[in-house]
Every structure is written in structure tokens, then in C-alpha cells.
């Protein structure tokens, strides 16, 4: 059976599964639509959270990023896992005890202010749309490469599937499809990694193979990798050229941002008890760690494989480089997508892949007769091309396609749900039309989800040029706006309405302003995006950390000089601090 047919079958089967679950788990009340009736088992919720959290970026892009950044890629590994400790210990149990439906609802109630709730909804919608556009794009790319259809067709199919289970099933449908999607994506991610680890080192566990000796050389993988990349003028794999303070700030912004992302927080509203919210965060991290400890191994192995496929012999030797005519089939296939490009700059018919931006290496390159780097590899293809590079059977390739789609769809659905509940529950029911019936609110939620899907699809098809630039926004905003006010709302009884609003706005405006100034989203950047221009040497990716600190300082200062929160709010804070008395699997 050829690859395309097989991929159609595997992807088609996974879709049938998702739709089947959607029909089985149809939501009939707002409680089921927003928080799955608060009846989800903590382990199941952990798995759903893992799928919710691990997006197309985690599945498709992260290992590739690490492959080219080496140690510098650690910011994603620590940043996108460490936030779960904050969630488990500082947020999830208390928000679950509070027991309402959405994150802005908590902020509005705790700070006795509709304005605070609306600011929170605006942050939430902005963060979530930024994210969802990337997911839809990921679905389109997988479809166009593996199923050989137009990106638009792929998008429409993807939107249709999400539409069915998110609009029909709400949180309940999403929870159980996410469990299925987690299983698909983790199998798809680990199988190729295990095969490649075994081929390369004889040790099938990627986490261990990463530190084992490479077959036939007696050298440790990382040692060998450092050697082969530096011979070509690249930076040593286990080091970085980023400053320590920047690595620190980016990691912190990603960690805190993770803990402040509404679509992740809201998953902990779905479990029956406070203690389930705690353990559920632990299970989520177990399921996430399976992929996140595999990814750096995949990155290192992919970089080694790629480098040694092209640099077949000694660096500088006449026949040391791969001849273009003899390039493997996977390179030909990815060339046709434009994500892999070769340009024979010195006309020798061989591929030279090296760091031509390294001035110290330039003299050597000239001596070898090289006229510049000839191969451009889009880092996004590393995971998708991995099974082909390792010459694994076609069903593995088909599975990876289904895994990429599962990762993108599960995250998209979670994001769309928080957008729709932000509109129907916080804006309509909570603010503008409070006398809606439950049936009307449920209908409004479904319509909002449907409209959000259409907008997401449009953004995925016509990604505004700035999608890549605004990813820093999502984490920076979550870190600098939502996270601090939630934490202060739980751990301090004295932070009041004025303090919270002033803090959120300070964090928001500072972070947004800084990113806009260097990245120039709708206009040319005002300041050149280079390290010597940055405040304290912190890049726009890491500036959310500073925004968060400012938010805390301003909120405390303003609360000190204005009236204390009313008595009943202080009692509410006392109440959410103890587990006893949480409302169970009932509707409000």
C-alpha cells in the first residue's frame, strides 16, 4: 500500500474516533459545556491537560528548535514544564475550591469589579487567538505534506472536526477527545524516537541513548555532536551564545506564562475535588514529561543524523560532502515542499552545510573551496522527516502525520472553548445580558465557539505576517497580566480592586509596549532587536518576567494607599484556602 493511502486510512481512523467520542459525550447543560460537569477523574484530566497543552509547536517544532539551538533550547524544556509546579502548588487547588466556570469570573469576583473581569477577558481572548492561529497552520502543513491536498482543504477538514466535537460536546466532548488525541500523539512521537535511538546507539530508550556511545565510534553522542558541529563552524551543541540573564528571563516568562494560560487553568476546574486538582497537575506533568524528555534526545539525534548525512567524510576533503545526485529520497520529497532548499554556490555538485556567518571559520571555508552554506533546512521538518530519515516503515510515517494533527486539534479545541466561554459566560451572561436563561447561554456558547473556529481558520489560511512575532505575546501577556492577579488574589487578602486593575494594566502595557517596540507588529520596529539595545539584556521573549514583577510591585503599592477589600471578600479568600466544602460534581 502506498504512503498516501495508508496516511489517509490512519488519519481517517483517528478522525472517526474523535467524532464517535463527540457523539457519545454531548453536553446538555452549561456545567457540562464549560467544565465537563466537574466529574473528570484526575488521571484522565491529567492526560487531557497534556494534550491540551502540547500543541503543534511542542509536537512538530520543538525538537527541531532544540536541534539547532542545542543548550539554548533548554529554555523551552524547562519553561514549558516548570510552570506545572506553580499550577499545582499556587493556583489549581484554590481555583478549583472556588468552583466557578472561568478564569475572568474568579478575577471579577475576587476584585469585586466588572472592569477587572473585562480586562481579564480581553487578555484571554488575545492570548488564545494568537495561539490558535498557529495550531490551524500546523494542521494545514501536515495535510499538505502527507495527504497531498491544498492547505485550504486541510484547514476545512480540520475545522470541521473541531467544530463537531467542540460545539456539540463542549468541555465534556473536548476532554475525552483530548485523551484519545494524547494517546495518538505520544505513540506517534515515541515510536520513531525509539527506533532512531536504537539504530544510533543500541539503546532503545531515547532518554538514555542521548548519553550513550554512538554505534561504531566509541564516542558519547553529545561529545561527538559537539565535535562534528564545531568542525563546520557551528556553536558547540552543549553551549549557547545567549546571555545568562536572557536565558533566565525567557525560562521564567515561559514557566509563569504556562501557569497563567486560561485554557490550561480551566482544565483543573473539571475535576471533582480540590485534592484531585493537585494530583491532576502531577499526572499532567507525567504525561507531558514523556514527550518533553524525549524531545531533546530527538533533537540531538536529528542534528547528528542530518550533519553526518551531508558531511559524509572528512571536513574539507574533496569527496567529504554528499553529492547532490546521491541525496536520499526524503530530501527530494521535502525539497518539493520548499521547506528544504539546496543551492550549489560553488558549482561542485556536492552539498556544503556549514556556518557561513562564523567569521573565524571563513578562511578555512575559502581554503576548502566553499562559497557559502548551500543547504537551508526549515527546523519544523525535523520531527516530521525523522521516520523517513531513519527509513522506518510507512505506517510509522502515517502515524506521525496523525500525531501532528492530533496535537494541533487538541490544543485548538481547548483554546476555542475558553474563547467561547469568555464571550458567553463572562461578557454576555456576566456583564451585558445577565438575565439570559441557561439554554440561551448554552446556545450563545455554541455560536461563539463556531464563530471562533471560522476566525481561527481564516487566521490559519492567511496568517498575518506577524503570527510568528506575536507568539512571545501570548506567554508574555499571560505572565505579566493574569498570573500575578490570580496569585495575589489567593495569597493576599489585602490586594484590592484598585491594586489589581493597576497591576494588570501596568504589566500588560509594559510588556506589550516592549514587544511592539522591538518586534513592530503593525509597523516597523522602533528599536533594533539586538542584545545591546535591550533593557538589562532581556529579549522581548523574556520581558514578560519583568512585566510580572512590575505588576506585583504596582498592585502592592496601590493597595497600600487605597481602601482594603470589603469584609466578605476577605472571607471568600479565607474560604478558598481550605479544601473542605468544595462543591462536587454538580451544576451551579
Amino acid at each position, binding site marked *: 500500500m502506498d504512503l498516501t493511502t495508508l496516511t489517509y486510512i490512519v488519519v481517517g481512523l483517528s478522525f472517526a474516533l474523535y467524532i464517535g467520542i463527540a457523539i457519545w459525550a454531548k453536553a446538555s447543560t452549561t456545567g457540562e459545556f464549560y467544565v465537563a460537569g466537574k466529574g473528570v477523574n484526575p488521571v484522565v484530566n491529567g492526560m487531557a491537560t497534556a494534550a491540551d497543552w502540547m500543541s503543534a509547536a511542542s509536537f512538530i517544532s520543538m525538537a527541531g528548535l532544540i536541534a539547532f539551538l542545542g543548550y539554548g533550547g*533548554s529554555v523551552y524544556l524547562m519553561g514549558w514544564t516548570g510552570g506545572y509546579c506553580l499550577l499545582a502548588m499556587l493556583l489549581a487547588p484554590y481555583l478549583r475550591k472556588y468552583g466557578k466556570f472561568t478564569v475572568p469570573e474568579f478575577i471579577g469576583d475576587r476584585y469585586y469589579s466588572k472592569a477587572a473581569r473585562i480586562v481579564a477577558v480581553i487578555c484571554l481572548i488575545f492570548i488564545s487567538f494568537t495561539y490558535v492561529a498557529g495550531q490551524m497552520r500546523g494542521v494545514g502543513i501536515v495535510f499538505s505534506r502527507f495527504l497531498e491536498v491544498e492547505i485550504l482543504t486541510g484547514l476545512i477538514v480540520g475545522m470541521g472536526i473541531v467544530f463537531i466535537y467542540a460545539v456539540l460536546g463542549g468541555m465534556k466532548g473536548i476532554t475525552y477527545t483530548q485523551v484519545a488525541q494524547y494517546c495518538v500523539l505520544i505513540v506517534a512521537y515515541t515510536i520513531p524516537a525509539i527506533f532512531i535511538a536504537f539504530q544510533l546507539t543500541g539503546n532503545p530508550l531515547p532518554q538514555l541513548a542521548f548519553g550513550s556511545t554512538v554505534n561504531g565510534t566509541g564516542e558519547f553522542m553529545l561529545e561527538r555532536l559537539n565535535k562534528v558541529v564545531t568542525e563546520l563552524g557551528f556553536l558547540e551543541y*552543549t553551549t549557547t551564545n545567549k546571555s*545568562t540573564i536572557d536565558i*533566565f528571563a525567557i525560562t521564567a516568562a515561559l514557566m509563569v506564562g504556562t501557569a497563567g494560560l486560561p485554557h490550561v487553568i480551566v482544565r483543573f476546574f473539571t475535576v471533582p475535588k*480540590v*485534592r484531585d486538582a493537585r494530583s491532576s497537575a502531577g499526572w499532567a506533568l*507525567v504525561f507531558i514529561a514523556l514527550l518533553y524528555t524525549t524531545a531533546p534526545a530527538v533533537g540531538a539525534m536529528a542534528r547528528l543524523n542530518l550533519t553526518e548525512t551531508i558531511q559524509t567524510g572528512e571536513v574539507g576533503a574533496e569527496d567529504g560532502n554528499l553529492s547532490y545526485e546521491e541525496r536520499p529520497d526524503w530530501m527530494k520529497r521535502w525539497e518539493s515542499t520548499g521547506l528544504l532548499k539546496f543551492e550549489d554556490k560553488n558549482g561542485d555538485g556536492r552539498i556544503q552545510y556549514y556556518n557561513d556567518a562564523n567569521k573565524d571559520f571563513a578562511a578555512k571555508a575559502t581554503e576548502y573551496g566553499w562559497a557559502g552554506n548551500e543547504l537551508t533546512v526549515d527546523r519544523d521538518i525535523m520531527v516530521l522527516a525523522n521516520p523517513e530519515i531513519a527509513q522506518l516503515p510507512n505506517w510509522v510515517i502515517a502515524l506521525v502525520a496523525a500525531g501532528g494533527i492530533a496535537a494541533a486539534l487538541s490544543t485548538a479545541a481547548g483554546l476555542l472553548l475558553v474563547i467561547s466561554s469568555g464571550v458567553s459566560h463572562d461578557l454576555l451572561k456576566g456583564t451585558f445580558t445577565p438575565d439570559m436563561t441557561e439554554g440561551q447561554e448554552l446556545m450563545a456558547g455554541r455560536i461563539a465557539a463556531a464563530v471562533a473556529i471560522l476566525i481561527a481558520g481564516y487566521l490559519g489560511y492567511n496568517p498575518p505576517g506577524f503570527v510568528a512575532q506575536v507568539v512571545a505575546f501570548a506567554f508574555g501577556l499571560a505572565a505579566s497580566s493574569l498570573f500575578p492577579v490570580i496569585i495575589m488574589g489567593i*495569597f493576599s487578602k489585602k490586594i484590592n480592586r484598585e491594586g489589581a486593575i493597576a497591576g494588570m494594566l501596568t504589566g500588560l502595557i509594559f510588556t506589550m509596549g516592549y514587544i511592539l517596540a522591538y518586534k513592530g507588529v503593525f509597523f516597523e520596529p522602533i528599536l533594533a532587536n539586538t542584545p545591546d539595545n535591550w533593557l538589562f539584556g532581556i529579549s522581548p521573549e523574556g520581558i514578560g518576567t519583568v512585566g510580572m514583577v512590575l505588576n506585583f510591585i504596582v498592585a502592592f503599592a496601590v493597595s497600600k494607599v487605597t481602601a482594603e477589600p470589603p469584609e466578605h471578600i476577605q472571607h471568600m479568600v479565607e474560604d478558598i*484556602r481550605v479544601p473542605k466544602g468544595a462543591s462536587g460534581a454538580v451544576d451551579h
Partner: protein
Amino acid sequence: MDEQSAAYWKRNVKLVASLTVIWFIVSYGFGILFVDALNSIEIAGFQLGFWFAQQGSIYVFVALIFVYVAKMNKLDREFDVHEDDD
């Protein structure tokens, strides 16, 4: 807040603070601030600082959450603020 709840909350904050210190040391400490010093130690093919940044910190994160869960469940019972079993 009565004395009992105040004591419970104090113990809770103390536990979270001590776990957060460990959380900080393995990631920001071993993985970032002291990475160069630790990289001079090599164990089984890994430079130690690099290993903490790309593997070790994640394992510790998982362990920290489960330690927190166990300790909190015990604390809840001790102060009789746990939820009913059903």
C-alpha cells in the same frame, strides 16, 4: 480567621515555599546560573549542567508535585479540613 485555620495556612505556605526553593535550585540554579561549573562534571556521557537543563529538572518537577500532593493530603487530615471520601 480562627487560630486553627491560620495554623493550617501557615504550614501550607511553608511547605510550598520549601518546595519552590528546590524547584528554583534545580532549574534556574543547576540548569542556568551554575551550568558552566556543573558542566565540568561528566557522568555517563552527559555534562551535568546540560543534563539538568534538558532532563533532570523535568524529573524533579514531577517528583515535587507528587511530594506536594502527599504532604498536603496529610496536612488536610491533620487539621480536619479534608474533603469527604465518596
